């Protein structure tokens, strides 16, 4: 309030202030009327009255003007105070002729609200019951708006409507959604609605019916959201502040359960980038124990394309902890194309996150394009780096995991890069501007680019390539002293490779990687956002990787032939290459594996669909958009936000997309408690109604400007009134002259 001009105070009820401001004219009117309405009185001592008037006429006029101003100002401040801190009590509203009220219900209908303990009532069912009771008791002049707080779900009653039985029917017909919760968006929508409507109705109030779980505030149970998820709390507070500044009151009805327990599968994906025909399926999944008690050993079942593919048991899971499990399913898939895998655990109180599905593409091999800048030099009798890589990627005649295709540099501009997952530039000159453009487009779409230097590698020219494709600059080549080749320093490596090979080496298992010696290398100078995966013993980065678009680019500091290092000749070369590729290749199928509330947006080639069949015979309509960019012409299929979990199939019955709940974000149903919730919303604890028996229309207090400014203005108005009274008394006080006192007595 300090220094805040009256004109910019966001009044809770500006109309009331306007009416009060109009009342400022009352003293002026009274003043003018008084000048015309007076009593007549004959007066004998007129000579003294005239003398007094002549001597005081200027002072009297000034005092009259001052009193008039004080009275006007007092009324103005009183009006401002009332308009500020009274959000619109029913009595006052009725008195002022406007008793209409808008109640904006922000309804948490996300899937955790469906938490159903044994023999109990879910928070959503309870909120629906309370809302129904409340709506049935509404009288005339009440307006209602319903906002869904679940992510990607439409607003239930976006435009406020008068209270009626139709509103009750809408409330009664609602079911818990399968979407996650997005508090800031829902509250911001309520704030926007309140700002639009608070001039049209007498008062606006926002009620948030929720369960106040740890997931709501992005934290785990028992932790401090302000410390663990400050950004999430800031967004929520900002939305609440927007509601209060819009002139509405805010109240939270907390329906959460203090001792809720839930076990959820939060992630399920392939451990590698792709599944291959005839290979075992390597899965990685994460379990979360969102309860307050340790979970006993858990049994996980798997099905592939609807057929049971085995089970796995895991040990005890501590409360509020998650566990990542790697599973190898020995059920090789023999047909290429999209396949689905489902993992499930024993259903609990929140069964929707006990099953998770994943859609993946099965290919015959991963296509790799090897660009050979220096094809084998028969005169020197050595293999080129490309030859070493080709041998490593395709060691056998058939059944290889990778399918390398070797070209020379001039052919790069003609090759269709979209047919490959990885492009390896080995000891090549920098591509021209067109080549760089094509490579950038390739990586941006999700491809992987790997660059090896070599003898004809122009480090300076590579370092000055336009754009930010490369994650590091190249220095001048350094040769190690004779007899003292450099080796890998795994201990000092900030290692982003999490594959078993490197992990095993770091855990002390001999893999032979220490036997690799590097005689010559080009120092790498990583860009700010890139990551150094491997270092030499001298500290120089040897392998630097960075993201570019949806793909990755990795730069080696040494060659892939035996000129600069003996790495290709070491036994560890093969696993090192494989694991490097596994780490660099982006997970395929991210476009098809969605969470509820997200849109499907997928570029397809060839066939296009107008709709997909979802679970429970639901239909997901698709819009088709032509995508002119990229390699060839594609059609992008875009859907509205997905509303239900399950496998979505095309018209021919093949799986096309999978949807799961946002379990990693929303399944922690542990209750944070009203006190912590009040801190997160930054509202007084009395504005949180924990486990309410009814949605009583209790008067809520104003946070922020409302209370402080209202009381301040009220005190100012009262002070002004008292000052006015004292001034009036001082101006007209009667003092008997000392000589007259006795006589008058």
């Amino acid at each position, binding site marked *: 309030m300090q220094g805040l001009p009256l004109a910019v105070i966001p009044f809770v009820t500006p109309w009331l202030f306007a009416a009060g401001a109009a009342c400022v004219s009352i003293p002026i009117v009274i003043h003018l009327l*008084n*000048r015309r*309405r*007076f*009593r*007549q*009185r*004959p*007066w*004998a*001592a*007129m*000579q*003294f*009255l*005239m*003398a*007094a*008037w002549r*001597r*005081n006429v200027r002072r*009297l006029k000034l*005092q*009259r003007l001052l009193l008039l101003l004080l009275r006007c100002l007092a009324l103005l401040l009183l009006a401002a105070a009332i308009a500020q801190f009274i959000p619109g009590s029913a009595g006052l509203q009725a008195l002022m002729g406007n008793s209409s009220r808008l109640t904006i219900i922000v309804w948490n209908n996300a899937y955790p609200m469906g938490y159903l303990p044994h023999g109990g009532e879910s928070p959503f069912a309870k909120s629906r019951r309370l809302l129904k009771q409340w709506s049935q008791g509404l009288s005339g002049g009440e307006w209602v708006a319903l906002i869904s707080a679940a992510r990607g779900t439409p607003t239930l009653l976006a435009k406020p409507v008068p209270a009626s039985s139709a509103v009750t029917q809408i409330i009664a017909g609602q079911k818990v959604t399968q979407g996650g919760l997005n508090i800031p968006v829902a509250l911001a929508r309520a704030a926007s609605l309140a700002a639009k409507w608070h001039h049209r109705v007498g008062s606006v109030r926002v009620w948030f019916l929720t369960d106040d779980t740890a997931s709501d505030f992005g934290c785990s149970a028992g932790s401090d959201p302000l410390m663990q998820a400050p950004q999430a709390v800031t967004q929520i507070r900002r939305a609440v502040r927007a509601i209060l500044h819009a002139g509405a009151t805010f109240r939270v009805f907390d329906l959460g359960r203090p001792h809720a327990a839930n076990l959820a599968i939060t992630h399920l994906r392939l451990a590698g980038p792709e599944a291959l025909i005839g290979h075992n399926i390597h899965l990685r999944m994460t379990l979360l124990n969102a309860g307050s008690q340790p979970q006993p050993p858990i049994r996980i079942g798997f099905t592939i394309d609807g057929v049971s593919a085995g089970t796995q048991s895991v040990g005890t899971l501590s409360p509020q902890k998650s566990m990542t499990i790697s599973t190898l399913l020995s059920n090789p898939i023999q047909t290429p194309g999209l396949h689905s895998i489902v993992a499930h655990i024993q259903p609990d109180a929140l069964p929707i996150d006990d099953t998770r599905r994943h859609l993946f593409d099965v290919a015959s091999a991963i296509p790799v394009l090897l660009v050979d800048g220096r094809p084998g030099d028969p005169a020197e009798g050595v293999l080129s780096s490309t030859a070493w890589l080709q041998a490593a990627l395709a060691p056998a005649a058939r059944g290889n995991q990778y399918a390398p295709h070797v070209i020379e540099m001039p052919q790069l501009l003609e090759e269709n890069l979209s047919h490959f997952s990885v492009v390896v530039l080995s000891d090549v000159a920098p591509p021209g501007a067109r080549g760089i453009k094509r490579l950038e487009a390739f990586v941006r779409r999700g491809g992987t680019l790997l660059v090896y230097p070599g003898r004809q590698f122009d480090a300076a020219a590579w370092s000055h390539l336009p754009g930010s494709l490369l994650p590091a600059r190249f220095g001048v080549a350094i040769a190690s002293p004779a007899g003292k080749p450099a080796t890998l320093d795994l201990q000092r490596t900030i290692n982003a490779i999490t594959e078993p090979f490197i992990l095993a080496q770091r855990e002390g298992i001999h893999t032979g990687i220490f036997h690799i010696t590097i005689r010559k290398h080009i120092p790498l100078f990583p860009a700010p956002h890139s990551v150094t995966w491997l270092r030499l013993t001298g500290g120089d980065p040897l392998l630097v990787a960075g993201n570019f678009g949806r793909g990755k680019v990795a730069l080696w500091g040494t060659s892939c032939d035996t000129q600069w290092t003996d790495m290709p000749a070491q036994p560890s070369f093969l696993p090192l290459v494989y694991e490097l590729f596994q780490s660099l290749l982006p997970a395929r199928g991210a476009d098809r594996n969605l969470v509820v509330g997200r849109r499907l947006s997928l570029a397809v080639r060839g066939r296009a669909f107008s709709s997909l069949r979802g679970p429970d015979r639901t239909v997901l309509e698709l819009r088709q958009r032509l995508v002119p960019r990229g390699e060839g012409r594609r059609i992008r299929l875009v859907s509205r936000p997905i509303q239900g979990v399950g496998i979505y199939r095309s018209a021919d019955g093949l799986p096309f997309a999978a949807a799961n709940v946002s379990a990693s974000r929303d399944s922690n149903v542990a209750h944070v408690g009203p006190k912590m919730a009040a801190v997160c919303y930054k509202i007084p604890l009395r504005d949180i109604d924990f486990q309410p028996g009814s949605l009583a229309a209790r008067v809520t207090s104003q946070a922020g400007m409302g209370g402080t400014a209202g009381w301040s203005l009220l005190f100012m108005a009262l002070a002004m009134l008292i000052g006015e009274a004292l001034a*009036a008394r001082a*101006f*007209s*006080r*009667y*003092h*008997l*002259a000392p*000589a*007259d006192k006795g*006589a*008058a007595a």
Partner: protein
Amino acid sequence: MSTETEKTDFRKYLEPRVLAKIGALDIRARLIVEGLINGMHRSPYKGFSIEFAQHRPYSSGDDIKYIDWKVFGRTDRHYIKQYEEETNLQLMLVVDASASMEYSGKTDPVWRKYDHAISVAASMAYVALQQRDSVGLAVYDSQIRRIIRPSNNPRQWRVIIEELSAASGAQKTDTGMVLEQIAEELKHRSLVILISDLFEDPARLIKGVRHLRYRRHDLICLQILDHDELVFPFNQTTMFKGMEELAELVVEPQALREAYLNELAAHNTLLREACHQLRVDCVQVDTSVPLDVSLPNFLASRAARLS
């Protein structure tokens, strides 16, 4: 019927309580008038109007010439003859009957300042006549409207009251000029009682007082003021209309109260100081204060000062 009404009208100016209280007091002249010799007003006409009152036993120290020897002869005891004391004090009541005296206040709208002045005059005249003093009357506004020569005839009181009741105020006041005329009219040294609100130019008034004193007349000024004029108790916006051809004024009384009272106090102070210098008693009479309170107080204090 009309006679009965007139009697009633006369009585309203003379309250028994007032007379009972001031009857025991006398109206002493400050100065010795015409060589009073005996009693309170020592008369220059020795034994002229001595009337027997009663006998009392002789006590040592009494003058033996007042012993009634006839009684001694009959009773063989010494008795002193006592006589009713009688003076030749000439009292002149000068009553203001101007328009300003017509004012009646909020508390008793019927009782004008002039009514109060008549009561005072009637009371003083009654007492004086009871003391065998001569009482005269002058009623004035801007000039003397009616003058009655002093007389000690018992019927003089009724004449005075009738004259006072018949007067009606509609003119401005000029007390100074009237006092000068009175001073010339009175042949003997007299006690003049001026009954007025004294709402006029102080300089002109003081000039008249000085002239009266120059003629060696004693003067008592009784300033009759309504309680409203003393406290100015009005709250609502009021148009005050001057009663002696003065202008009209619309004011908020609260705002002007203090200034008005200051002006009135300054006027009264000026008059009192001038009267004090001229050895004239000047006293304020509030119409809301009963006469049985104000008059005895004044007369007692005056008697004490003169004795």
